């Protein structure tokens, strides 16, 4: 898991660029088709031509629920995957991700705080507070990570686990007092069933982070090669590092506020893409975003289908699918090596 693919070394960079462009085109077409099909999965039967029949139930289901839901899915999936890959790149550690560095837990703490302080709050207020706390949480985590004296890669996911436990202990402590425990559950298990027209639009904010990430992609790659290397190339190491963490925290907070947390996404998707296509972010960032969107789409559709007419939250499905995929990956990577 810790090494990128080396087997593609003999091919020229032009070959590779052509190959990755092909992959990109193929995978975005697959995602587009899957997205379209997903519009017709759900409790209310919707046929493709419903879009031309205004004022029918099917039309309303499509416009008020299905299409917003699809957009939210794609935005959340791609932005969490991008948040994960940036965090891994700038901290130079494969196991740092929004769900393993306390970022999600900090965002949930922010939501609880916002609900306590401004009981009649709007989505926007919650989002701002959540962004603030998730930024704070992520930076505290990185500070602690820097001060750890054990130079061992397993310590990082573990530290993340502990840090997350501490932050959630504070959250639960507060939620318990103010009777908000049930709400905490909603935000910790991501679900798209609440997404309706007029209630998800702030999610578009992640597009800003996405664009900035793409512009800075090459710099994140260089920062991922180490401080010395980056400074040597004349890159403002600390600025790029902090920018990366800000993008990741903001995107995570926005997603958590609107739909809730989706486990494993920020951890697995970037690692799979990196194993398969390497670590050049300029090339892999779009792929990672597509794969993240695809992962969430699959999990959400599964959640809609498995127990119709009820829905199983996407976060729950993602926890199961993600865990199985992850364990399979680890075990296979090991047996290949020995």
């Amino acid at each position, binding site marked *: 898991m810790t090494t990128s693919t080396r087997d593609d070394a003999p091919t020229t960079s032009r070959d590779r660029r052509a190959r990755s462009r092909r992959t990109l085109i193929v995978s975005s077409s697959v995602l587009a088709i899957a997205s379209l099909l997903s519009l017709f999965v759900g409790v209310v039967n919707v046929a493709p031509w419903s879009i031309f029949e205004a004022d029918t139930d099917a039309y309303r289901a499509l416009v008020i629920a299905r299409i917003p839901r699809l957009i939210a899915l794609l935005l959340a999936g791609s932005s969490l995957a991008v948040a994960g890959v940036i965090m891994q790149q700038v901290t130079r550690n494969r196991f740092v991700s929004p769900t393993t560095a306390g970022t999600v837990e900090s965002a949930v703490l922010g939501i609880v705080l916002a609900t306590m302080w401004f009981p009649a709050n709007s989505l926007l207020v919650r989002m701002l507070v959540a962004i603030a706390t998730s930024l704070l949480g992520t930076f505290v985590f990185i500070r*602690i990570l820097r001060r750890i004296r054990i130079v061992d890669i397993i*310590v990082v996911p*573990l530290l993340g686990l502990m840090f997350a*436990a501490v932050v959630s202990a504070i959250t639960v402590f507060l939620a318990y007092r103010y009777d908000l425990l049930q709400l905490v559950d909603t935000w910790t*298990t991501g679900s798209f069933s609440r997404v309706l027209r007029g209630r998800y639009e702030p999610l578009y904010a992640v597009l800003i982070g996405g664009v900035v990430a793409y512009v800075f992609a090459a710099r994140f790659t260089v920062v991922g090669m180490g401080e010395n290397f980056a400074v040597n190339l004349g890159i403002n190491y600390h600025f790029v590092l902090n920018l990366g963490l800000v993008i990741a925290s903001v995107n995570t907070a926005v997603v958590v506020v609107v739909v809730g947390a989706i486990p494993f996404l920020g951890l697995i998707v970037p690692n799979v893409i990196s194993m398969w296509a390497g670590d050049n972010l300029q090339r892999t960032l779009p792929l990672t975003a597509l794969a993240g969107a695809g992962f969430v789409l699959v999990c959400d559709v599964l959640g809609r289908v498995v127990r119709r007419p*009820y829905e199983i939250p996407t976060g729950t499905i993602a926890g199961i699918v993600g865990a199985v995929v992850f364990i399979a990956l680890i075990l296979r990577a090991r047996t290949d090596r020995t």
Partner: protein
Amino acid sequence: MSTTATVGRPAGPVVDSIRRVRRWPISVRLGIMASIAVGVALTYQFALVTGAWDYAMSLRFRQLVALATVGAGTGVATVMFQTVTHNRILTPGVMGFDALFRLVQTMFVWFFGSAILVDLDVRVRFLVNAGVMTIFGLLLYRWILRRTTRDLFVLVLIGIVLGTLFGSLTLFASRLLSPDDYLTVQDLVFTSFNTIDPQLLTITAIVTVLAIGAAVPLFRQLDVVTLGRDNAITLGLDYRRVVDRTLIIVTVLVATSTALVGPMTLIGLIVANLARQLLPTFRHSVLATGSALIGVIVTIGGQFLAARIFDFTTTLTVCVNFVGGVYFIWLLMREAKL
């Protein structure tokens, strides 16, 4: 290595007191731990009584027995588990053992329906649950340990992932239940600590005592396991048998404590590591005793804080997770190796 690394660092008051404690003979340290445990228990039983004396006494006594069972069982189980996995970070909680218990309970309702379960005697229910969990847990963890026993890195990752997986599966299974069954599971899983069922308490206390009794003859063999698998085998130890027996005992102990107070992921981690810090020896007779005593102190003390000082505005789990997380992060920042 660790000694040379700590020489040049300014020692804080905590570090100083730990050093001072280390100069006392081990028997004295165990004696002090035992007296503190008794002191905490007496305080819990008699301090700050309001309302009917007799009622408070009998309720508090039941709670005390439950807490002591959980503390001692977790302490012993964690020390043993750490030895057979050859590290100080993995605990049954971190590896998802207690999440497994809830999963087994939920699956049980799913398969058999809540009607049968409600009629079932609470003791039979516990024994069936613990039995299923022991078989399932043993198979699963034996498989993982066999495959990855030399690769701590993989083991930790899989453990963390399994915790999430079991949590998600539990949620998934509970979504598949009918609303009635779901309520039953909630009742079963979240045992009310304020009205501990005397029958459940009796059976779990007996099982815990039996399991710890079964662990005692293993202690000397676990001392040898400290030397690593290869050395242990060449010294004539039946390594597989010792590991299997340890895993059975650990699973049973975790099942009993989870049945009584619900999952407390980090408690084992604090208790066992404190024991190893305060009692630097390889002898499991000493380590297990110390860990059990610290377990009793932490559970009773934590519940005293939560119930009497915070006046039930928080829970034991929250206290333990907060203190445990902070302690462990501090440990990671201080120690150069684990």
